[in-house]
């Protein structure tokens, strides 16, 4: 079993300060004054019951949504003042979701190359990076396969490769193994930890799985839109 590395440095890469978020014109408050700090290279698990705000916090940290109040900073830059949140999505942050969210009509290779197209990475470099990641994840023999032909574990590994294609510094994972069976879950999670450790990526992962969460360097409990004191 691969254990999570402790943070390599104490440099703050993710910062949420008094973040509030609600939906339906304030009828449903999901986050209530959340404060969170993520350090470079560390692995953080966000645990808590469904609806406690884990996914919402990930979306806000990744610039997919905006808080009603409070501030989110990535690598020292406040998101609300960030000229282009796209730059974050293209170069600094990768996302992995519970469902793989791959495009079924494209091949594994084509799915993985999507972020490189968005970022304008040259094809040669993109292919080299793809080879590197698929070698590590054991998918190099499946490059030309359509997504429908892949197993659940292969799909989630593909999603992991895609998220890391542009060498992001931060990986936000929302229940990355939630749709997998127990054996596959362990394999994929081992791989996830191994790659983030090798690449020096900061991992923030929302999960219900206490066992997997326990393997992260830090576990944060969320409840009713708030973060409880670190365990």
């Amino acid at each position, binding site marked *: 079993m691969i254990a999570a590395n402790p943070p390599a440095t104490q440099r703050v890469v993710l910062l949420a300060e008094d973040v509030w978020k609600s939906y339906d014109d304030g009828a449903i408050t999901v986050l209530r004054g959340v404060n969170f700090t993520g350090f470079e290279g560390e692995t953080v698990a966000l645990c808590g019951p469904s609806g406690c705000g884990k*996914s919402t916090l990930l*979306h806000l940290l990744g610039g*997919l*949504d905006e808080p009603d109040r409070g501030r989110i900073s990535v690598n020292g830059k406040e998101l609300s003042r960030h000229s282009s949140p*796209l730059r974050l*999505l*293209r170069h600094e942050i990768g*996302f992995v*979701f*519970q*469902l793989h*969210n*791959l*495009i079924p*009509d*494209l091949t594994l290779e*084509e799915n993985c*190359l*999507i*972020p490189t*197209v*968005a*970022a304008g990475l040259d*094809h040669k470099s993109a292919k080299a990076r793809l080879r590197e990641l698929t070698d590590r994840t054991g998918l190099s023999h499946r490059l030309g396969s359509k997504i429908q032909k892949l197993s659940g574990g292969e799909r989630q590994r593909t999603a992991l490769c*895609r998220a890391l294609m*542009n060498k992001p510094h931060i990986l936000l994972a929302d229940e990355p193994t939630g749709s997998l069976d127990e054996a596959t879950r362990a394999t994929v999670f081992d791989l996830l930890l191994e790659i983030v450790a090798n690449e020096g990526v900061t991992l923030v992962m929302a999960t219900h799985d206490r066992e997997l969460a326990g393997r992260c360097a830090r576990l944060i409990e969320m409840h009713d839109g708030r973060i409880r004191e670190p365990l």
Partner: protein
Amino acid sequence: MIFLKLIVTNLLRHRIRSLISIAGIAFSVAAMLTIVTVLQGAVAMFSGILSSDSQIIVFERNVSDLFFSSVPSEAVQTISSWPIVEHADPVLFGIVSSSDHPIITCFGITDGDARLRKASWIQGDRSQFGKDTSGVVLGERAAEFMSTTLGNTVQIGHGSFRVVGIIKTANGFEDGGVFMPLSSAQSFFHKEGSSSVITIKLHSKEDVPKLKASVRRSFPNLVALEDEEFTRSYSQFKILKATAWAVGGCGLLLGGLGVANTMIMSVFTRIREIAILRVNGFSNSQIATMIFGESALVSVLGAVVGLVIGMVFLFALKLIPALHGYVDTSVQPLVLVIVIVLALMTGVAGALYPAMYAMRIRAVEALRFE
């Protein structure tokens, strides 16, 4: 490459829907090409009648239709006497009918007219024209539909005429027409002492401005235009061309609505996929480019198929004996370019709303409901 794959993949994903859109554009393009080409051919043929061995046409100022133009015989005599003029031929246009054909174009001309000189004589010869005021020359198709031959008497309108010749010309109007001596036509149409137009050939083209000025000065009631100038400015031609483009445009508009419908459906059924692209860093412009790319591909394929259908249809029209000579099926390159550009513009316009909708998709909302 992935970008192109995304575009093609989406069109292939809903083949029937894509095919219907392509067919919509194709039939619109085919209709536009056919209508515009046929009408432009008709205009060219009519222009051809006027410009037969001539450079300038003189007609009554401010008439909307040459059939109503009245040019006095004195003008023909005066203009013919000018030294810069090689020949000036009066032509009187009239519409007559026979028992089977409600419309037959009638040309009142002199025996030296270029139409008779240049035609291939199938029966009879030019020397017989004008000898007898009741003698007419028929175009080959006119003789065909009147079921007559040389020496027969034919009933045209309220008069009876003897066929003194049958000619073949490349021009459909002329080939289906009746050529009468000018004096007979003047009498027949109650236009004694006048013609509809004078077609003029000069010794030197450089004298065109001089002739125009002379006509303006000597006959203020007449106007002289160069053939090309006339084709451009004649209101009947303008109306015909505008109608052709308008009808074709309506067809393309319908095709465009088909593309719009397809693209809207395409975006609505792909909200999640577009959200995935957004999470992976696709910008608004990249999303829009993808949507416009799809509609452009549909339009290009539709335009190509439409051009092929249009060409085949025009070719088929040409083979119909009744239309022989009436349909000029040679497609002008400019018309081709305009039709293709219009088809593309229609496709792009059809993708405007879908693209705007796609750009407004928020990844976080689309992905929340897994």
